[in-house]
């Protein structure tokens, strides 16, 4: 049975996020940027804020935009096996998936 002694990890992740110069905090974001940021925020319900997964789900933050987009399209067509992602990817147009992939790729991560 997986157990959850993870409060410390959660705190560390939060501190990192608060300290990062994240793309989401740009006050002058354009309407298009704010739109895709809100779409991408939906994904955070499984992949954590800005796609900084704590584990068990793939991290999306700072990944290659083309890799993310290809994965989403392959989920959509059924080429890539999935438990749930094919059902989500089919809810978005190719253009929406492209913009979401680009947004996650733009998230700064410590290397």
């Amino acid at each position, binding site marked *: *049975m*997986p*157990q*959850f*002694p*993870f*409060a410390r990890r*959660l*705190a560390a*992740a*939060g*501190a990192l*996020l*608060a300290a990062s110069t*994240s793309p*989401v*905090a*740009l*006050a*002058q974001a354009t*309407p298009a940027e*704010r*739109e895709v*940021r*809100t*779409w991408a*925020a*939906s*994904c*955070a*319900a*499984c*992949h*954590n*804020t800005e796609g900084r*997964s*704590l*584990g*068990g*789900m793939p991290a999306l933050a700072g990944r290659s935009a083309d890799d993310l987009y290809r994965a989403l399209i392959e989920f959509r067509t059924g080429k890539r096996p999935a*438990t*749930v992602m094919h*059902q*989500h*990817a*089919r*809810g*978005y147009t190719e253009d*929406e998936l492209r913009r979401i992939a680009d947004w996650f790729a733009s998230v700064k991560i410590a290397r």
Partner: protein
Amino acid sequence: MTALDRRHFLLAAGAGAGSLALSGCASFSQRPLARVVVIGGGYGGATAAKYLKLWEPRLEVTLVERNEAFVSCPISNLVLAGTERIENLTVRYDGLGRHGVRVVRDEAVAIDYERRVVRLARGDALPWDRLVVAPGIDFLYSQIPGLESPQAQEQVLHAWRAGPQTVELRRRLEAMPDGGTFAISIPRAPYRCPPGPYERASVVADYFRKAKPRSKLLILDANPDVTSKPALFKAVWAERYKGIVEYRPNSELVEFDLRNRTARLQVEDVKADLFNVIPPQRAGRIAEGLITVNRQWVGVEFLGFESQKIPGVHVIGDAIAAAPAMPKSGFMANNHAKVAAAAVIARITGQPVSESPIIANTCYSFLTTTEAVHVASVHKYDPKQKTLVPVPGAGGLSPGRTELEGQYAYAWARNIWADALG
């Protein structure tokens, strides 16, 4: 001109003159752009408070929450099954402080919409320029004669808000003798977490199967059929829990006879050794003045979750009259919160509110203590219907229960707790 309008004006003037680097304001101890108060620190409210600060650091964001810590309803049925501990589903509110959210531990007792303040049980009233109300649910015990008193409610638990009742119901399940009958009463939809009662029945049956195999589990459902994932639940009951689980549709509880431990349904009386009555529900009491639908739920518009009754007040989570095929789930509340936060920021900064929100849902349910299934959906705004509607061809169910999805259910929980509170 209201105070807020004045700020708008100054902002616009500053931007027009090109003399203000707006993003730099946050680091100075200047007056905030606006004050936003969030009532309720569950899946919806905590997420809203965090994202308001994340996306617009110049806001002053105050979260009012009466409990010391967040306790997750998702996963809590495994506490009843004995494979998980409530401590592991509990997250403190400290993480929100690191994002600059002011967390006030108090109870919001009234909202003054005229003066735009939230009155608290103990502390000073909180003024707001925009308000986010995320009150969750309250229980309509008035609809169940016999269970109106607090004493009766202590004897017949709901365990439908995770916390002390969850722990106490587990204790009573352990105390029930092998060969006893446990009955779960489910109210008519809509209620919080559509698959939750059936998940509860399944994982408690898994506990009975291992620990007290002569016991029975009776599901008394007010609805005509299982309201979520019906084929998946019925399959596991017929196969793995054969002889333990009995499902009775159209079995609405109309009265409870505490002395004789008997549930009175419309058509019959049912006795059991232990009852779990999940009562009918409505929006949490603090949202009373915002209720517009069936005297139960708060009507909102779906571009920003703004109340249909009172402008400037956004309502999210289980308390709203949901859009078509939108379940009352923690995942949905988390997604409502982000659309609402974006709209609050747009309104305050004088920008257009996006007319194309897209949100999603994935609800995992455990069918055994290790194997889970999901139901998923994607919801897009339809300008003709003026609501969020499920995208045809998207979403769906698991083909069957797997341990892999059990692991994903846990991973989902860890990540959404971090997304909302970390």
